[in-house]
């Protein structure tokens, strides 16, 4: 453990139990949603090292307290935002690791076949990479279709989903639909629950 700058330690201690409770809940929720989002973005479809997304929030907090990630309260006063950056960094690493493993498995399988035919090993797994990418793209396409199906027939959910698809922020969608921000947030949470159900029906890869 690296000794923290006394001012940083004092700032971390001054957060207090109530502040830490908010950070723990907010950061874990952030990690869970980011992990779910990244899963659909990558061919691997899972995190490496058997990590649960929720573990990453605790790891980020530990890294800051241990001085492994240097928080500068003057430069970045919002501790939760800083911790979210730490989670992002760790998540990217884990997703890339999982992605790498899957690519190598595909590459090795391809290389072994090639060895048998030509006796020459090719370390560049381009065709297999393309195969894995195509699989990820198909998964995203299937999930997007399933999400749209899940809200079909419910006009308010369909309109909110359309707004999100068009890149609008919840506040803009609220203004377009003549709803309050809270009402739009509630509808988005309803869509999220539908997405969970849709994802649960996703065949295991």
């Amino acid at each position, binding site marked *: 453990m690296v000794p923290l700058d006394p001012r940083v330690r004092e700032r971390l201690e001054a957060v207090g139990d109530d502040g830490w409770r908010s950070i723990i809940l907010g950061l874990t*929720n952030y990690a869970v949603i980011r992990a779910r989002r990244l899963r659909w973005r990558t061919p691997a479809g899972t995190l490496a090292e058997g990590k649960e997304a929720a573990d990453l929030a605790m790891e980020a907090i530990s890294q800051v*307290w241990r001085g492994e990630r240097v928080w500068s309260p003057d430069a970045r006063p919002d501790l939760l935002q800083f911790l979210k950056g730490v989670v992002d960094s760790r998540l990217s690493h884990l997703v890339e690791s999982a992605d790498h493993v899957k690519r190598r498995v595909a590459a090795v399988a391809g290389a072994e076949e090639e060895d048998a035919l030509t006796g020459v090993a090719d370390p560049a797994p381009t065709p297999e990479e393309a195969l894995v990418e195509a699989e990820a793209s198909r998964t995203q396409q299937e999930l997007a279709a399933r999400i749209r199906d899940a809200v079909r027939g419910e006009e308010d959910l369909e309109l909110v989903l359309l707004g999100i698809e068009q890149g609008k922020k919840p506040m803009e969608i609220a203004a377009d639909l003549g709803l309050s921000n809270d009402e739009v947030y509630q509808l988005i949470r309803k869509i999220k629950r539908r997405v969970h159900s849709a994802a649960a029906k996703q065949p295991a890869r």
Partner: protein
Amino acid sequence: MPMERPPASDREFLDRLYEAFGEATSQNEQVLRESLSDEGIDPDDLVRRGLHLVRELSRQQRLVAARTRLDRVREVVKGVARSGERFTGDVRRAIASALAGEGEGALAQAYFRKLESVEPEDLQSLVDDAKILELLERIDAESE
């Protein structure tokens, strides 16, 4: 609703959707708790584990800080003892900086003011770790 923006790819669509989920589920603590419960995470257990972790890390940091200060003061005092130097204002200033972990900052100044009232014999006894700890405790208690 106006349709002025181009349609997103599936990947962009999913990215935007999860961005919206993040915003919609972090509006207040109640919503956060519900969102975590939906994910199969018990928010009370999560907070309990998290606070336990924070308290333990805080305790460890205090220990590390105390040990670091002890090492720094020990070095200064032993250096003085070896050289046969007297506990002048400069030495007291060096001890104050070692205590504060900084040069001429406000904390070092505060320690220096406290050390001014410490008798030279007491400072000489600081070659003993127990005496250094005793002094640190006394100064910190006066600071609180």
